[in-house]
């Protein structure tokens, strides 16, 4: 054994680990990049299939139709990716979005606030619900499933109460529908709702990968206890994560209201499952610790594309449901195979 009194740093010959592991890791990085690329595979396959099956599928106007129909669920899914990466779950997405839309209606139509202020306030009401979820989960230690289930019911009821169980229209709010339906990029026929989805994807990807919040979401989802004893303020970050998801919920509410030109108080139940499904199909694990924003977008697009394709083909609706179920199974199974092969 080495003598304690020996000087100098530990010589390299007594390295703590053998060097061949470094090699394995580099190969791992390459593989991961390949995976990112391959994740599109199911989506591409679906697009190809429908393009061949129906002439009306691959038109610009139908593509924007798919993107537009993915926008709301997509935005919800982006936000909840953070929650799921951190090992949580968020069931109040759908009705929370509806309540945010109703609040936007209250601010803009009932109270007549200026557009920007009303929209921001609407988004903040989404954030407020997220904050309450976060507090219930992190401070009162109510399991996320229960806390957000309760919020789902509360938001559902409040949306009806606040709106007086009638839709709130934005007819008197000039410019509001442009938030979803306008086309910001001149010459390109792409509705703003789609641009918002893409912009939020880019933003979300950066936040998840590069920000402290994203990093800590992974840490908490990976091993909450370890994160805690590493000195991370788990409580505070959980609250922030749910609040962020609430912000996305608020944005989805505004985009939805702008698309429908109204806040429909009875909408939204069931959207949470669709959003969570998009996240999971996109490769994020419900166990937490693993996930990607781009994956979530792809997951949402897979569902949007199948739904649209089957509708374009006029498949009877009862069969559509069956087929979507099967496609989800196959998509995730092949994804598993691919991952299994690589790792």
């Amino acid at each position, binding site marked *: 054994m080495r003598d304690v009194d020996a000087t100098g740093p530990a010589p390299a010959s007594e390295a703590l680990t*053998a060097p061949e592991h*470094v090699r394995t890791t580099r190969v791992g990085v390459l593989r991961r990049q390949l995976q990112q690329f391959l994740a599109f595979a199911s989506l591409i396959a679906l697009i190809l299939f429908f393009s061949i099956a129906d002439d009306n599928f691959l038109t610009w106007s139908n593509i924007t139709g798919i993107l537009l129909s993915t926008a709301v669920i997509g935005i919800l899914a982006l936000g909840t990716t953070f929650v799921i990466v951190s090992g949580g779950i968020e069931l109040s997405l759908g009705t929370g979005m509806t309540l945010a839309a109703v609040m936007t209606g209250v601010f803009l139509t009932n109270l007549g606030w200026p557009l920007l202020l009303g929209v921001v306030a609407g988004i903040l009401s989404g954030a407020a619900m997220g904050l309450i979820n976060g507090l219930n989960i992190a401070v009162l230690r109510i399991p996320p499933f229960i806390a957000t289930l309760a919020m789902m019911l509360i938001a559902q009821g409040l949306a009806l109460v606040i709106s007086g169980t009638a839709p709130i229209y934005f007819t008197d709010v000039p410019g509001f529908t442009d938030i979803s339906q306008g086309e910001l990029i001149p010459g390109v026929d792409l509705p703003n709702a789609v641009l918002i989805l893409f912009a939020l994807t880019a933003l979300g990807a950066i936040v998840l990968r590069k920000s402290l919040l994203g990093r800590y979401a992974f840490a908490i989802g990976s*091993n909450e206890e370890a994160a805690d004893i590493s000195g991370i303020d788990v409580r505070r970050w959980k609250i922030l994560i749910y609040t962020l998801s609430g912000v996305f919920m608020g944005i989805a509410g505004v985009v939805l209201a702008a698309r429908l030109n109204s806040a429909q108080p009875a909408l939204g139940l069931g959207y949470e499952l669709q959003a969570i499904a998009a996240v999971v199909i996109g490769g994020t694990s419900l166990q937490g610790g693993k996930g990607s924003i781009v994956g979530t977008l792809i997951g949402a697009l897979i569902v949007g594309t199948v739904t649209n394709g089957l509708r374009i083909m006029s498949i009877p609706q009862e069969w559509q449901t069956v087929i979507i179920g099967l496609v989800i199974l196959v998509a995730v199974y092949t994804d598993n195979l691919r991952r299994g092969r690589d790792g």
Partner: protein
Amino acid sequence: MGQRQLTCAVTSLPSGSSDLLTVKSTSLGQPPPRTGRAVNAQLVRVDGVSKTFPGVRALSDVSLTLDAGEVHALVGENGAGKSTLMKILAGIHHQDEGTVAIDGRVVEIDSPTAAQDLGISIIHQELSLMPDLTIAENIFIGRERRRGFGLFVDDADLNRRARELFDHLGIALDPRAKVGSLLVAQQQVVEIAKALSFDARIIIMDEPTAALTESETHALFGLIGDLKRHGTGIIYISHRLEELAAVADRITVLRDGACVGTLAARDADLRQVVSMMVGRQLRGQTRPPSLPGDLPTVLEVRGLSTKSLLKDVSFSLRRGEILGFAGLMGAGRTEVARAICGADRTDGGEIFLSGRRVRVSSPADAARLGIGYLSEDRKRFGLMLDQDVAFNIVASDLRRHVNAAGLVRDDQVRQTARRYVETLSIRTPSIRQRTKHLSGGNQQKVVIAKWLARDCEVLIFDEPTRGIDVGAKEEIYSLLRTLADEGKAIIMISSELPEVLRMADRIAVMCEGRLTAVLDNADADQETIMTHATKLVPGGGVAA
């Protein structure tokens, strides 16, 4: 210096570490000790600390001091309270009674961050890393350099710092690798690097070498030497008592949550330490008696290969025999075990049980065929931490505890559990205690009990004595021997060569996925084993 306040009654001996150490080199990149304070000042003083968990008095009236530049070893049986005391210093638990003073000032350490702020860092006994994060992210979690209005992580900086740290420590790991993809030993190294990265003045090492092989242990001692020269105080916990002579300045022994005494390491006699720990003398080490040559072969492995590592591993195991597996970290011993018990897919090879070829495609198959595998990673593959001791002990043998109606007979379950709690001296307030709340070593014993209860013909023990105290080790050794004498065939994978030499009738040595030698105990010594473990012997694997 400060040991005067020691309240530990029995054998308080003068400290051996009162030499002034002046910092000259800063090769570790550590800041020089804060000015204005003597380097050999008393860093930590624990006074009359007690801690009770539901049903367990883990610490009672423990006192301890740590000087700058000192390595203070803490030893004691499993469940003696070592980790609990350290967790109090690390801000994970809070003491019920008593005080902790840092730099002579009484402090409340109420969170891990508070401990970090006081300059305390800890290598946890139970690995506490986040498997989905990279090595660099794990090491610097909570201490990332931020960019962009403090919102974003500077990853380049993170990786650079990690690489610098690794260069200093002589670690050859890619900081960008996911921790979840590392071997247990590599994770242990990451834990060590993480604790050292704090530039802490007080470093707690709770069994840092439990998962390491000798060369890494050696390197760690080198690092400890450097740290000491920089005035860092280290509390060092280990069950490998022979290490103490090499690293420790003082040794404090805990028993049943109380201090038994503190000795100067240079005056200490290992046997004395052991008897303080367990209250008795241990038998000296012996080699196993040679076995008769005509024992029937129970398990035969031919040409075992896996895509990732193993190449053409062949050996046989005889009834009543203990076959030791030695090798460096990553040599493939665990992989051999996992392949045999069906936990991993193999790429080639045949397994024969008592001459009959068998297919093992899952651990359930293996268990049915009478092959049991005790994993080296008890937390991940060994224990159901949320379940109680009884549940875990009968987990693999539950089928034999059901009545005619197929319902579990809990009286029998309790009986079995009690029996093994007794046989293995598992220290637990009751068999209904959740294993999560047991000390590390007692958790290990629970896993061992699980396989003893199952009564397999072939038992593969992967690092069975990891984290187990000397006394219990002896008990496990004699237990293994008894099992062998009863006719079981045993494979014992161990990174402690003395242990292998002491226990194994034959010793299989592996290197980089190949079996390089199978030695009879009589022909083996540490040097021969290391030769075979570090270079491929021409001609490849040795059939046994």
